[in-house]
């Protein structure tokens, strides 16, 4: 297993996934308070529920 510059073991699979992570989203979240992060999560859940409902309606259309 490879070792990072700071001496930590690096998992090649995790490192491969890490390349795909959108760090702008992380930076944006780190600027938020914990409460704002939860509020954002609940908003995302609300949106996901809406999309699921819309998807179900589409399935009902003959």
């Amino acid at each position, binding site marked *: 297993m490879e070792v990072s510059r700071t001496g930590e073991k690096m998992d090649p699979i995790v490192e491969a996934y890490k390349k795909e992570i*959108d760090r702008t989203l992380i930076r944006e979240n780190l600027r938020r308070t914990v409460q704002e992060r939860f509020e954002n999560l609940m908003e995302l859940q609300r949106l996901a529920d809406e999309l699921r409902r819309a998807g179900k309606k589409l399935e009902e259309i003959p």
Partner: protein
Amino acid sequence: MTRFDQLLSVLVRHGVQFIIVGGAAATVHGSARLTQDLDIVYHRTDENLERLIRSLAPYQPYLRGAPPNLPFKWNKETVQAGLNFTLITSLGAIDLLGEITGGGTYENLLPDSVQIQVFGIECMCLSLKRLIEVKKATGRVRDFEAIAELEAILEEKKRSGI
């Protein structure tokens, strides 16, 4: 939708000893991933079980995904007889965990937890480093992406001195 604000407030108001783990803990630390439920590791003392039962009782806890009308009773005997419960309540989905793979019990995890302030309350949340260790210990393929994001958060925090 899971009302994280109300679930956490209800637990704290009843004095339940618990630690936020899983996806909700990842949210606390800055994850942008969508999680559907609140995962908590609860202290398995008699007094805490009673507090836990009392806190959730008004919100009709029931086994998530189970067929309706099962003889599930939300009481101390039920919780004592089991360890981990995947529940749905009128406030949303909550997983009550007596212990977790790679992390152990409430007592094991408490030294690696941090106190957070949110929604006007204070509660404990697993530290970012420990959360990564626990996720790695579970060894689930679906966690690789989550681990990668958590490690990226750790790197970003170090980089920006947070």
